């Protein structure tokens, strides 16, 4: 079994809870930003996720869609005050019926939540250099990593989108005081091209210990993994897959790993060293 990246911090004990929807607004690119009020939230480490199922206690007999959906925790990694609740943000891409229901949840309605789950990114070492590359809703997994890293390391964030109007989270990332760049495929904002264009040169020119962190569509992460391998830079990626439980029992979220056999994304991941993943075997 492949280990998660080294120096990972211990994860808080997960909870299951009915969380009230505080806000749910349409974000760029047809995506949604869902804000939940989570009683007794134990906090989370960067890269962790939660399982979300629309409907509170009154709808606990809802059977279609049946399964919860894994969603990266975007903002809200601090634990709730004792006896209180925490505001936690998620970015949703509508991919089917389950995510459409989550995207349509109105303030005052409830979402059944299990989390935080999975492991986390290894923290950005003080004094080191980190390059974070995000695409689509994958930027959610990188936000807290960037926020913590910005306090003692040189952090550069590159977010990519097809068009300027599809880009999410740029204000939030810019406000962190990191070096921030945008690429769009049509050139409507920032550099024209893919988020991985120019990455090889940027990494090759970097001085001192550098780590590449990537989260987004699988082809994007695979390209990052290949570039990092060529340049000889460490790379961590956050994978996603269909899963029924999120805590290691349905065994549905298996991905092939270089050490042989399969690894469960929900337990050994979702963060992997890029070289441990058998990219050609991903669904």
């Amino acid at each position, binding site marked *: 079994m492949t280990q998660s990246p080294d120096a990972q911090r211990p994860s808080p004990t997960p909870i299951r809870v009915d969380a009230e929807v505080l806000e749910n607004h349409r974000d760029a690119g047809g995506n949604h930003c869902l804000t939940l009020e989570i009683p007794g939230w134990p906090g989370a480490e960067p890269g962790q996720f939660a399982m979300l199922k629309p409907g509170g206690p009154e709808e606990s007999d809802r*059977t279609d869609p*049946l399964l919860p959906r894994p969603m990266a925790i975007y903002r809200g990694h601090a634990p709730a005050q004792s006896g209180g609740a925490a505001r936690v943000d998620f970015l949703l891409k509508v991919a089917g019926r389950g995510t459409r229901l989550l995207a349509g949840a109105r303030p005052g309605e409830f979402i059944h939540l299990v989390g935080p789950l999975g492991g986390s990114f290894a923290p950005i070492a003080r004094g080191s250099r980190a390059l974070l590359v995000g695409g689509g809703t994958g930027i959610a997994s990188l936000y807290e990593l960037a926020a913590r890293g910005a306090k003692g390391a040189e952090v550069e964030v590159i977010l990519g989108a097809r068009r300027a109007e599809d880009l999410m989270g740029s204000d939030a990332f810019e406000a962190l005081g990191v070096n921030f760049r945008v690429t769009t495929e049509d050139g409507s904002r920032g550099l024209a091209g893919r988020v991985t264009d120019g990455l090889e040169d940027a990494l090759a020119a970097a001085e001192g210990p550098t780590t590449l962190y990537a989260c987004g569509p699988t082809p994007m992460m695979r390209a990052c993994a290949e570039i990092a391998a060529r340049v000889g830079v460490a790379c961590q990626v956050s994978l996603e897959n*269909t899963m029924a*439980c999120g805590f290691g*029992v*349905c065994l549905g979220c*298996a991905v*092939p790993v270089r050490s042989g056999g399969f690894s469960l994304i929900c337990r050994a991941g979702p963060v992997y060293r890029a070289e441990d993943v058998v990219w050609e075997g991903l669904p």
Partner: protein
Amino acid sequence: MSGAVDERVNLAGIELRNPVLTASGTFGYGSEFSPFMDLGAIGGFVAKSLTLQPRAGNPPPRIAETPSGMLNAISIENIGVEAFLSESLSALPENVVVIASCFGTEPDNYAELAAKLSESPRIAGIEINASCPHVKSGGIEFGQDPRLLGELISRVRAVTAKPLLAKLSPNVTRIDEMARVCEGAGADGISLINAVQAMEVDVETQQPVLSNILGGLSGPAIRPIALRMVWQVAQAVNIPVCGIGGIITPEDAIKFLLCGATAIQVGTANYLNPAAGREIAEGIAAYATRKGFPRVADLIGALRLPEA
């Protein structure tokens, strides 16, 4: 919720504090659920099916959602009996009732496994998985052939004094016949149903959604089928029946008890709500109280049929 109502049942010689077990393959090795509920709040759990050696599963995609259900083809991925006995069991509190599930490709594997498991005082009973719908050899082959099934149960019966449950496949023509064969071969109880063999296709890619092509359908979609089979088997045998299939709510569980099940197993529901077992047990007790049944055991077979 325990207060007035006596929640205890006896399943094939296994004393349970309430009739709610969790089903093999949906509850890991138990401790995965410790963050979400006190494992002592349910009657017990059936651990993931074990093989003699550790076993890797199928390539992805392994699961897919279907209307009110899910398909899976994991293929009995498990840590192997030795790791289960030496690590998983010792991680569990003493008050947790553990039933072990055995899987093999031939009766000798099953018997060797059952013998090893029987040595542990922590194992309350043994369930024979003769019904995995997505393993190429073993499992379902036994579950679909009455002669092979009888031989398998006899073989295991000879090596264990633990309460022995035979878990049946629904993928047969005569479920009552399969249950009678198990009773005749010495099983102490019948668990049913395992997943229904099924398939789904993605029209965009024109491919099956699972790498294994076929999988097992579970969840509320199969519940009425399971209920019918539990009803039929409860009529056909004199040993206790454990009802399984798409139980999500306390009401679902009560239906199985009314149709003759002595206990039930919660399966797919554990994925969406890791405290489902506890909530279902509480709901059953509340129902018994509301309906004036002094004991939950009084619900077993209490189905009221129309006058002939």
